[in-house]
């Protein structure tokens, strides 16, 4: 990818760059394999470099909020406490997600059924490493002492010490069970990333805004890394192949979409970020656009499946047939509505936000009995996920909410996560279950 003429490239100070390289050797040991085989899989495409990019010439006036039109902030020390705190939380959360996703993807990368899909995911992981590097650059290129008691070096160490279970956002603390997770995660969770990056491109803190364009370019490919294999899999499923069925894809969508929706933060929030000029949209507004986009991805997958199953249909006939099945509930050509994919209801299986711990089914149906809801979940989530600590924790909290021992809002805050606790002392590096006193930062 050619860089815009206005892009500046830089690297971290050597000790931090080396720390990222060591992290890469631990969690992304296939990085060198990717580089060695780059030309075979991505011929004539510029090879990835571990560096930070800043795009110059971007809007230098605050683009939203109470100070719209004022000059953007160039240094962290110029930020007021509230804005600085919000921004620093967003940078650390973003960094955490970038490194966290690599730790998730690595678990099942080797199980990819197709070499191209595997290399695409591997490249995506390497680019996520660069995104994490970009966020560390923001932490190290400025003085955050007016906002945080932790030094930049300590913040970097904290981020590089996180492992699956200790990351800031829930979606990055859930283990992958198969390569289907790699792909569906790219299609759904990276899509949230696209929204966050697009919003942060307008940040009142100019270095943040300047960091976004290249990340957004790379993120566009990450979404394709999810959607293109899904399109291939539904086609293969239509031909009767049994490797990745529509059923298993649906369950993976049900597993990840609720977590993706929660990554936008509570539906009622986000106003502070807008007022402070850090993002142009409140949480609900961005989340609704995201959900609509996911619905389009699902509709396109259904069309791909239908046309593979009924190849003699013209385009117009295929559209009518899909509408009869999805909207009319008819069975056409042996395809029943329940065979096709759908985006689960936005309140399904939620543990954070406005509908947290409401017992809402995939189609929006409401449950009043926890056991019945548990059975519903078990029918609609991947079997391997049901055995996870994450799911068990959800059900235990749900039962407490149901009997009135804990309010839903409190349960959201109490949702335990594996976190690194303590400071930067080497003896505190172990990760353990903790219950937070306050809600985790949401970006």
């Amino acid at each position, binding site marked *: *990818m*050619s*860089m*815009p*003429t*206005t892009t500046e490239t830089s690297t971290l100070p050597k000790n931090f760059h080396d720390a990222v390289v060591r992290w890469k050797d631990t969690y992304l040991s296939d990085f060198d394999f990717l580089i060695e085989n780059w030309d075979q899989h*991505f011929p*004539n*495409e510029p090879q990835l470099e571990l560096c930070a990019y800043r795009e110059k010439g971007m809007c230098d006036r605050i683009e939203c909020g109470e100070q719209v039109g004022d000059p953007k902030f160039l240094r962290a020390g110029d930020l007021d406490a509230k804005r600085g705190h919000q921004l620093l939380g967003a940078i650390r959360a973003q960094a955490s997600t970038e490194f966290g996703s690599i730790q998730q993807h690595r678990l099942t990368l080797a199980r990819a059924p197709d070499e191209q899909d595997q290399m*695409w995911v591997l*490249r995506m992981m390497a680019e996520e490493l660069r995104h994490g590097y970009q966020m560390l650059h923001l932490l190290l290129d400025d003085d955050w002492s007016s906002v945080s008691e932790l030094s930049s070096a300590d913040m970097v160490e904290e981020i590089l010490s996180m492992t699956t279970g200790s990351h800031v956002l829930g979606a990055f603390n859930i283990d992958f069970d198969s390569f289907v997770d790699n792909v569906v995660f790219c299609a759904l969770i990276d899509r949230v990333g696209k929204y966050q990056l697009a919003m942060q491109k307008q940040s009142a803190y100019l270095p943040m805004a300047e960091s976004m*364009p290249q990340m957004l*370019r790379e993120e*566009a*490919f990450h*979404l*394709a890394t*999810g*959607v*293109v294999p899904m*399109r*291939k899999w539904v*086609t293969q499923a239509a031909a009767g192949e049994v490797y990745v069925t529509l059923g298993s894809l649906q369950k993976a969508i049900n597993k990840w979409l609720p977590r993706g929706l929660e990554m936008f933060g509570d539906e009622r929030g986000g106003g502070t970020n807008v007022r402070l000029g850090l993002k142009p949209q409140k949480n609900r507004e961005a989340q609704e656009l995201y959900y*609509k*986009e996911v619905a*389009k*991805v699902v*509709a*396109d997958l259904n*069309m*791909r499946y239908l*046309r593979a199953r009924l190849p003699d249909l013209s*385009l117009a006939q295929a559209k009518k047939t899909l509408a009869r099945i999805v909207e009319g509930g008819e069975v056409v050509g042996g395809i029943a509505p329940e065979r096709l994919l759908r985006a689960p209801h936005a309140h399904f299986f939620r543990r954070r936000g406005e509908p947290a711990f409401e017992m809402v089914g995939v189609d929006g149906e409401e449950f009043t009995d926890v056991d019945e809801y548990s059975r519903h979940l078990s029918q609609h989530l991947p079997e391997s996920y049901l055995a996870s600590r994450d799911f068990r924790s959800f059900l235990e909290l749900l039962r407490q909410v149901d009997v009135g021992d804990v309010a839903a809002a409190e349960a959201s805050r109490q949702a335990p996560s594996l976190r690194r606790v303590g400071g930067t002392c080497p003896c505190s590096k172990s990760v353990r279950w903790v219950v937070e006193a306050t809600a985790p930062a949401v970006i």
Partner: protein
Amino acid sequence: MVAREDIRIRSLSEIDIGDIVEIDEKIGGEYRPQVWERRIGYYLRRDPEVSVVAVEGDRVLGFMLGEVRSGEFGLEEPAGWVEVLGVDPDCQGRSIGRALGEAMLLRMKKRGAATVRTLVEEPMEDLGRFFVSLGFSPAPLVAYVREL
């Protein structure tokens, strides 16, 4: 960037695959999803900002795919290459192709391209006129082909 009427030009995205497959089928009469999955995957890897789509609401009305690259035919300086253009036949006459072309040229310039090139088959006079209207002129270059 706002174009004609309520048409918006934005960067290519993977969610456009289905709509582009549909436009291609309307133009050429053939359903070729794999072709577009591969090609759009390529452009998204190369440079998703240079390739553009025209949308009205959620619907893609047209697309233009291309990239900036160096080293073609011994030309070392970065040059833009316009490679594919498609407009929904139901939406032709709304200057969608022109809006796409103008947007792509701007994006290529930002990418450092000093020139932009494309190839048009001789019988496609309309397409040739379209590029001339965008400021292109015939290049002193003859394409040679041999069947193998």
